[in-house]
């Protein structure tokens, strides 16, 4: 970016140099002090010079002289020399003689006086340059006062040349200077028109303009061949500086639409050189006319913001999707061209404008950062909390939590309390720790939720108060939630720290896992979700292990698995004599699992073949996953663990039955799917908007089906929106995708998670790094040999330690005042410096 800027700054300088008559070698000094005779005799025809006459002693005009001196260099660029002429005391000629002439500056071209300026019009460099150029460019820059004048000028120019119309609030300003300097260069190409009339500004702009800031419009009059046709106008959207004007005029001078017939990667246009993006409209022979019209339309919209090129697919062999119709090339080097499928021209425009916006923000930020860097390195928001959990908890700390339902346990009452209820849930937390406190808030909601549930006691232990108790219970990290039952090992909660998840865990934990069912009725009731009554009727899946008496090994593994899954899964177990009857009814042979989904609406039987607990747990977890789940914040991790890519349908609300049916077909189609087919309800999981926003610069129309390679490569592919979501369409799309025929719309960031902000560099503050010095060899001018009795290092092993321990303290006193940042403690500068610091305890 900055390289590009440099490039066009240098081209501008070059331009200026060409346009100006280069100052002659005679005028080496910018300002010669001459006598009037010398001055007038040296004037060359056609060469402009600004002269001012001053008596040898000039007490009053000093500040003016300084400004003149500093503008001399600027004016020299335009071939105007600045001359200070000393008036001899006896001189009474035209310029030296009159008292008021000494308060003026005179502009000559050759011998001819063009203008005389009162010194109060030349108050600074800007005003000097602006006024001098204004006087010299009298023909090139028209000054208009009325709308009629402006329209007349426009009409004259129509079909011939373009016009640059500038409004400046006052003459002699920096903006005025910029316009004049631009006119110096471009005055022969475009007609420049200048005004200071607010009425004119208002007449030429659409909305209410800010009259205090200068405006510049480029009027495309050359193209207006008919007298009735108005000149199109393009405003310069940036502040009036010479660079911005130059850039704007360069852009206006560029062809509206460039036709490209070469590799777009190699194309370079004015726009790209000036740091603006280039939009390609991909065209074909058949649609050339329409494409050309589109391109021109877009080009007018984007004039000054981006370039537009028409890229013929017939002439260039593009390895891109056939559907792609637009491409975007950004000025950053090495950035590949983005090929897009856009539906209308507005999308093209938003695409560019948003990019610009983003860029603008980034530039601003960069600038801010640079400024901050210059200001003060340390002070870049390091002391502002950027941990969302910590900040949220500290903002919430004044709210009193409803913790009455939760028993406070201490070292004294811990063991006695555990025996009071059948089940005691204990939250181990630390009262200073944010995550703990966040969980405590959810826990208090659980307590309200479970109020009155028999057999469950909710309690908490603050490990900051009772560290001994926590370490005795082997709690090394907080928060931790355990469920204690008399005579049994406590169960540690390992699920989401959410109110719902925790409540359901506690409720489920009330029944044994697996639950031993005694009769067929119980087993049937259990599968329907009606038994046992302690459990709330549960729309989710129930699991029943059916074992014959001969299948002990499987049963033990199942029971062990139950211990592990306790609280998370409804697990029942039936191993009565008539287990065969049950298994026959569902046509499985024991050992087997029966899965009842949706409260017994669908039943599935699975034969058990692996008897290791670990396999069993894994298998049960896998079986409990839905085939076409709705992804939510709390269930995503379960599906993430499968390590498969996601085929995910983002929907604004519930998905339609058709979509659901097709997706389900797709998901069921192959039992060992290589991907997770799922959907996301943006109403229920609004953070999905954040995902889409990261993937796409513009929000795609919903529902949108995406293929996300979460685990490998991170590419995101978008299912073509014009196709309907059917199993067939998706499958063929997936095939193309697998064959590498599709282009990803986005790629997940590969970035590492680095520290968000730097830390305080105390090491630097304490002592700048010094080469390793031995306390025995370093010498200070103030040290006398007597202060440090020489000791051979290691020569006296017995005394070595004490020697080292004593010597540093001597050194530190010797160093006081010597090294910066240290040893100044207690001295006056140190104390006064510290006075400026903020809060202090001793002041409280």
């Amino acid at each position: 970016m900055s390289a590009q800027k440099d490039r066009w700054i240098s081209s501008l300088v070059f331009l200026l140099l060409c346009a100006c008559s280069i100052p002659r070698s005679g005028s080496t000094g910018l300002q010669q002090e001459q006598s009037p005779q010398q001055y007038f005799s040296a004037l060359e025809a056609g060469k402009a010079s600004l002269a001012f006459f001053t008596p040898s002693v000039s007490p009053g005009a000093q500040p003016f002289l300084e400004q003149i001196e500093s503008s001399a260099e600027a004016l020299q660029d335009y071939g105007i020399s600045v001359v200070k002429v000393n008036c001899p005391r006896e001189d009474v000629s035209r310029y030296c003689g009159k008292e008021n002439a000494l308060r003026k500056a005179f502009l000559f071209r050759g011998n001819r006086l063009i203008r005389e300026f009162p010194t109060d019009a030349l108050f600074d460099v800007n005003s000097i340059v602006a006024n001098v150029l204004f006087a010299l460019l009298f023909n090139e820059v028209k000054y208009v006062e009325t709308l009629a004048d402006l329209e007349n000028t426009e009409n004259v120019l129509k079909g011939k040349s373009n016009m640059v119309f500038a409004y400046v609030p006052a003459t002699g300003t920096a903006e005025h200077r910029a316009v004049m300097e631009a006119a110096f260069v471009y005055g022969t190409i475009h007609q420049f028109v200048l005004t200071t009339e607010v009425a004119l500004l208002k007449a030429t702009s659409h909305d209410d303009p800010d009259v205090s800031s200068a405006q510049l419009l480029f009027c495309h009059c050359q193209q207006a061949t008919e007298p009735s046709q108005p000149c199109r106008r393009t405003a310069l959207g940036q502040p009036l500086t010479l660079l911005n004007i130059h850039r704007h005029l360069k852009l206006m001078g560029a062809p509206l639409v460039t036709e490209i017939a070469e590799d777009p990667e190699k194309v370079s246009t004015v726009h790209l050189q000036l740091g603006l993006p280039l939009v390609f409209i991909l065209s074909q022979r058949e649609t050339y006319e329409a494409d050309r019209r589109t391109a021109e339309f877009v080009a007018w919209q984007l004039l000054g913001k981006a370039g537009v090129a028409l890229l013929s697919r017939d002439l260039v062999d593009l390895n891109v999707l056939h559907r792609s119709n637009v491409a975007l090339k950004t000025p950053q080097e090495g950035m590949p061209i983005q090929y897009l499928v856009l539906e209308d021209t507005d999308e093209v425009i938003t695409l560019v404008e948003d990019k610009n916006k983003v860029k603008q923000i980034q530039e601003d930020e960069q600038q801010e950062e640079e400024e901050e860097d210059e200001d003060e390195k340390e002070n870049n928001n390091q002391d502002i909390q950027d941990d969302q959990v910590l900040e949220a908890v500290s903002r919430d700390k004044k709210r009193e939590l409803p913790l009455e339902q939760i028993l406070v346990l201490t070292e004294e009452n811990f063991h006695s309390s555990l025996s009071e209820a059948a089940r005691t849930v204990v939250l181990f937390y630390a009262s200073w720790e944010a995550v703990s406190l966040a969980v405590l808030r959810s826990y208090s909601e659980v307590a309200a939720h479970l109020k009155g549930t028999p057999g469950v006691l909710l309690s908490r232990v603050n490990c900051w108060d009772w560290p001994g108790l926590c370490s005795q219970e082997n709690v090394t990290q907080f928060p931790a939630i355990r469920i204690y039952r008399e005579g049994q090992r406590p169960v540690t909660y390992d699920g989401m720290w959410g109110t719902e998840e925790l409540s359901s865990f506690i409720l489920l934990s009330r029944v044994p896992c697996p639950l031993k069912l005694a009769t067929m009725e119980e087993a049937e009731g259990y599968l329907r979700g009606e038994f046992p009554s302690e459990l709330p009727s549960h729309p989710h899946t129930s699991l029943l292990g059916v074992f014959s008496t001969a299948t002990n090994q499987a049963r033990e593994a199942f029971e062990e698995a139950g211990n592990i899954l306790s609280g998370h899964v409804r697990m029942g177990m039936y191993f009565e004599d008539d287990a065969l009857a049950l298994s026959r009814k569902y046509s499985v042979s024991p050992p087997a699992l029966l899965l009842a989904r949706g409260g017994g609406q669908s039943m599935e039987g699975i034969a058990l073949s692996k008897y290791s607990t670990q396999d069993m747990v894994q298998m049960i977890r896998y079986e409990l996953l839905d085939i076409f789940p709705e992804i939510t914040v709390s269930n995503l991790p379960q599906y993430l663990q499968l390590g498969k890519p996601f085929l995910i349908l983002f929907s604004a609300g519930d998905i339609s039955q058709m979509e659901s049916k097709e997706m389900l077909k797709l998901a069921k189609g192959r039992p060992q799917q290589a991907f997770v087919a799922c959907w996301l309800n943006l109403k229920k999981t609004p953070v999905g908007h954040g995902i889409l926003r990261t993937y796409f610069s513009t929000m795609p129309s919903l529902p949108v089906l995406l293929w996300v390679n979460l685990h490998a490569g991170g590419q995101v592919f978008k299912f073509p929106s014009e196709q309907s979501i059917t199993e067939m369409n998706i499958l063929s799309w997936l095939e193309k995708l697998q064959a590498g025929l599709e282009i990803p719309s986005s790629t997940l960031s590969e970035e590492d998670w680095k520290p968000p902000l730097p830390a305080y560099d105390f090491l630097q503050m304490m002592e700048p790094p010094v080469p390793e010095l031995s306390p025995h060899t370093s010498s200070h001018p103030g040290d006398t040999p007597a202060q440090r009795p020489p000791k051979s290092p290691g020569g006296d092993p017995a005394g070595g330690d004490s020697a080292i321990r004593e010597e540093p303290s001597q050194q530190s006193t010797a160093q006081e005042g010597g090294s910066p940042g240290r040893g100044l403690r207690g001295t006056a500068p140190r104390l006064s410096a510290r006075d400026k610091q903020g809060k202090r305890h001793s002041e409280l």
Partner: protein
Amino acid sequence: LGLALYAGSLCAVSGAAFLYHDYCVIGAGPAGLQVAYFLQQAGRDYVVFERSHAPGSFFALYPRHRKLISINKQYTGKSNSEFNLRHDWNSLLSHDRRLLFRRYSRDFFPSADTMVRYLEDFASLLKLRVQYNTAIIHVTLEKNEEAWNGHYFLLTDQDRKNYKCSSLLVAAGTWVPNVVNFPGSEYVEGYETVSINPEDFAGQTVLILGRGNSAFETAENILGVTNFIHMVSRSRVRLSWATHYVGDLRAINNGLLDTYQLKSLDGLLEGDLEDLAIVKDKKGKLHITLRFYLEDRNISAGIDSITLPQDELDNFATRAPYDRVIRCLGWKFDFSIYNRSLRIMPGKGNIKKYPQIKPSYESRGTRGLFVLGTASHSVDFRKSAGGFIHGFRYTTRAVHRLLENRHHGVPWPSTVYPITQLTNSIIKRVNEASGLYQMFSVLADIILLRENATAFEYLEEYPVGVLAELEMQTGRKAHNGLFVIIMEYGRNFSGADKDVFYYNRAVGEAQHAWQSNFLHPVIYYYKRLPTEREMRLRPPDWPLPRPDAIHHIVEDFLTDWTAPNAHILPLRRFLENCLSTDLRNFFAESCFLFAFTHQKQPPFCQQGYVRMQGLVGSQELRHHAVQAGLLQDYTHTDFSGDRPPDSRDGSQDQLMRDHAIPVRPLQHLINAKDE
């Protein structure tokens, strides 16, 4: 291995008249009992020898006026037992909650008799193996290649009974009174025998030699009944509240300073006791003179022939005769019982009363001999609390851990945590750990990083002086960098001549934390373990070599370092930058977004959410986070893609990019103040 060695050594000594133990401890004072407790807990073969019939014989006699100056705080407003040990200077460490000193005395400065009773209970309740009435009078070495340290320690008691040990732990304290010899020193009474009845001093003029707590304690006792008291010592008075060293003069004993500075006849003088001489006149009054006046003269010739300073200098300060001269010069280690082969040498300079030891508390002369308790104070003399119960109870534990590793293959105890717990584990320790607090700049917590910094190992209270030997001493590996957590006073803040009450002495802002004066936690980060050479050549005044990065947690008036913005945030930034990672906490919703938009997850999400332990957070909390601009609220997003100009679109991006976090108005105020 220990067992095998044990069995082997039993065989080797069978037949000889030696009773063998792996560990012999000399002295059943606080340090001896403390190490006995740890040895017993570890199931080691040990014995403690005590010359008296009961533990803590030093306390049975001293302090003479029976008031301990170690504080015994009943209330701290906290129930945290570890924290409360910071303000309990008398208890020994044990698992038994009955053995807390505050259960023995309600006095803030308890009586020494209570200490004796406490130590008796400690030995008996914990069933420590103490052999009373056994005075070890000689210790020598027996070379043996099979022994743990290449030699056995042979101990002989007063009844010529012999004992043989693999490791000798000397917890004998410093109990030999310091004596100065000058002409007339026979008239001087010692602190150990002087009367403690003020009546005996009524109307007398007293000179006290020495300027420690025992001298002031003695003066305090008789201040009200004497004519006046003068106190002579070589060095100026060192006030413990100025030096932050508990061994210096404590405010509880400084009544004499008060009366001196308020012109009430009492006074302090500086002078070298070696130059003194005392002569007794016919009335029994004691006159101070200088040693060189006595040269070539016979004192027995009578007082009249002796020149007194006032004869030449008629305003000589101590020209008034004294009724009594009392010596209160402290104690030194009993070097006499150790054979020359053990090379137990006194230290140099002001630590000559202590035997020379390494920072690991092992003797410099003999491997396998460790010095514990008060006698080990040379490591931190006039710096930390290693000479006092509230300090050496921790260094003793550290020595025991070193021994467990060296002789029994039990590595230093440690806990492994995931990296997300890094900030928490440090905050927890600096807020409650008492060993770090009492033994500031001597004991340090060590965090050893695991590969890729995904986890770390936490070691408590390691002697920082032997940091270079960490791997060998602890049996833990430090290949991937380490943090050292230590507590420090501000450099140059403490000192006998320092004004510790100057205005603006306290630093309040985290960014100036390195200038903190009061005790505060400091964290050193090393990419690799410092070498011994680096330890030796460390910058003057630094407890450790120059680290790769350092962090000071700003001093706190309440020593409560849990403030989210002033304490935890800067610490997290420091840790993040050392490890080059992001240690922030995230709600599950953020992790969900990251899972779909980033190929890598921040550690908190990786170790929590992805493992189904996401922090869902209550509605209120998420609302607060949204308001803080740290969480994006997507619920009101419309689908048109037109974003309202005032929407907080950027905030999630901010969270990810970490730019432009909204500046709160307060911040401006602070910044403006600074500039």
